[in-house]
């Protein structure tokens, strides 16, 4: 397999099963320090992937009118208005384009009961639209709240666009990757805040960039999701942030739910045994 960096070697078994057809693990490095909040990524994603509208609403939260990632928002630009110098009003903007993390250990993929969610030869995590039956389990399983369901509209023909009843999220432009193209959001990003490439190369580049920023006096710069030893085994799409993750609406210490699978099934087995004992002792009366 390509690369050989720590993240690539930590790639979940799914990618390894491709044998000779395996590709280097591809991902995103989103450097929020150069994001200008233009939302070209949101628009390019919608255009390329034919993602339906996600509600024309004013949230009142700065310039953010998409609010969060969802079935119909696969890139989401967050806007944080801040006052760094006392009494000067808003004098700093944090902007960050959020996306599905394409986790090394992906809870959505693990818990999907139909096999609709799979790992591609590029190590990315994709929902197969024609298999998903809209059970909704992946939605609360994701530690980042990335996925949601496009609710079925009774008045609309079954399985159509915005009303198909299925779960949806970023595919890391699987179709474009197969043709050797970069994802639409990265292509459209005018400042290279969104960078696409082999994950190990991106991680090396990101670490260099982070050091550079700290040396230049930006003490708050930190990488989020580059550590293969974190709770999800590292992200396939990771970030350079200028504040704590929760400031951007990201969990500070995400963990894949299935890490605790032993405890989850162990408790069920013990409870089942106890119930069996209770049933037998009840009929002995």
């Amino acid at each position, binding site marked *: 397999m390509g690369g050989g960096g720590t993240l690539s070697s930590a790639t979940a078994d799914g990618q390894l099963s491709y044998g000779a057809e395996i590709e280097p693990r591809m991902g995103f490095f989103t450097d929020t320090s150069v994001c200008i909040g233009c939302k070209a990524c949101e628009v390019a994603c919608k255009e390329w992937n034919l993602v339906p509208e996600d509600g024309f609403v004013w949230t009142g939260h700065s310039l953010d009118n998409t609010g969060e990632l969802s079935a119909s928002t696969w890139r989401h630009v967050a806007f944080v208005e801040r006052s760094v110098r006392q009494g000067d009003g808003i004098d700093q903007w944090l902007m960050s384009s959020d996306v599905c993390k394409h986790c090394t250990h992906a809870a959505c993929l693990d818990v999907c009961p139909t096999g609709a969610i799979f790992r591609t030869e590029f190590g990315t995590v994709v929902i197969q639209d024609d298999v*998903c*039956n809209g059970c909704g*389990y992946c939605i609360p399983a994701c530690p980042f709240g990335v996925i949601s369901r496009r609710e079925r509209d009774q008045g609309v023909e079954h399985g159509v666009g915005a009303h198909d009843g299925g779960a949806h999220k970023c595919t890391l432009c699987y179709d474009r990757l197969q043709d050797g193209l970069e994802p639409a959001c990265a292509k459209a990003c005018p400042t290279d805040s969104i960078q696409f490439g082999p994950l190990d190369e991106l991680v090396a580049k990101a670490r260099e960039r982070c050091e550079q920023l700290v040396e230049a006096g930006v003490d708050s710069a930190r990488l989020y999701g580059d550590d293969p030893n974190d709770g999800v085994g590292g992200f396939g799409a990771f970030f350079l942030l200028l504040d704590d993750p*929760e400031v951007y609406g990201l969990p500070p210490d995400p963990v894949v739910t299935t890490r605790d699978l032993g405890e989850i099934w162990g*408790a069920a087995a013990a409870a089942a045994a106890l119930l069996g004992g*209770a*049933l037998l*002792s009840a009929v002995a009366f």
Partner: protein
Amino acid sequence: MSEPEYKSYYGRPILKEPVWKPEIPWYLFTGGLGGALSGLAFGARLAGNDTLARRAVMLAGAASAVNPVLLVKDLGRPRRFLNMLRVFKVTSPMSVGSWVVASFGTASGAAAGCELLGVLPRVRALAEASSAVLGLGMSTYTGSLLAGTSIPVWHDARRELPFVFASGAAMTAGAAAAIVTPAAEAGPARVLALMGAAGELANVSLMEHRLGPLVAEPYHEGPSGRYGKIAKGLTVAGAAVLAAAGRKRAGAVAGGTLLLAAGALTRWSVFRAGSASARDPKYTVVPQRERLQARS
């Protein structure tokens, strides 16, 4: 408790709330009810109590017919429900559960059918035995199902939720059987209901205690807190009535009904607690921050 300090993005949730509709808390109820009834039927048959066995088998069959209807109705694409059975994944409690629901439904349906028609006694015996074993899974896997999410109030209760659902299953199965069975033959049902009620009170308290004051907050306020409080009251009242007057027809019906309501409300409380836990970012951020601090 006092509000903890934490940062968030405009107070917006980090996690997504479950999109499951009221079918799911009702399924948590009917699944456990039918599962434990199959076990009670099998046990009663072994003990030679055919009157109790017959009624429990029929009730279990009815519950197992309702289960898949509730589950399929809740899907975003109900016509694709069979896609659940194209894979088997131990990493997915819902996948394992789909197979349990399908096989339990087949077994308990067959048992009820044979009982109703009075045919194929050996098929019935086999179906009763297998539905009893599968029923143990029906009554407990639902705890794993909720624990398999990232929602703090569910995932952090992964060691307790299967016990909460198992005791609730025993309580409601005993209560339902006590209602429909002549008092003289319903002794085991009453005992099961009382054991279940005691277990339910203990398991819910243990779960709330182990979650800690912050993560368990949804069990003390809002709709989930209200449902939980009423459920505890109904559990105590129903158990008292059943213990004191369960040998009389009216006592069995009153006590059993109270316990059935308590079981349903406990499941609604757990279900609604999940939404509340996902909706407020403090339940996600504060424990994760504490975890990070403890590691550094």
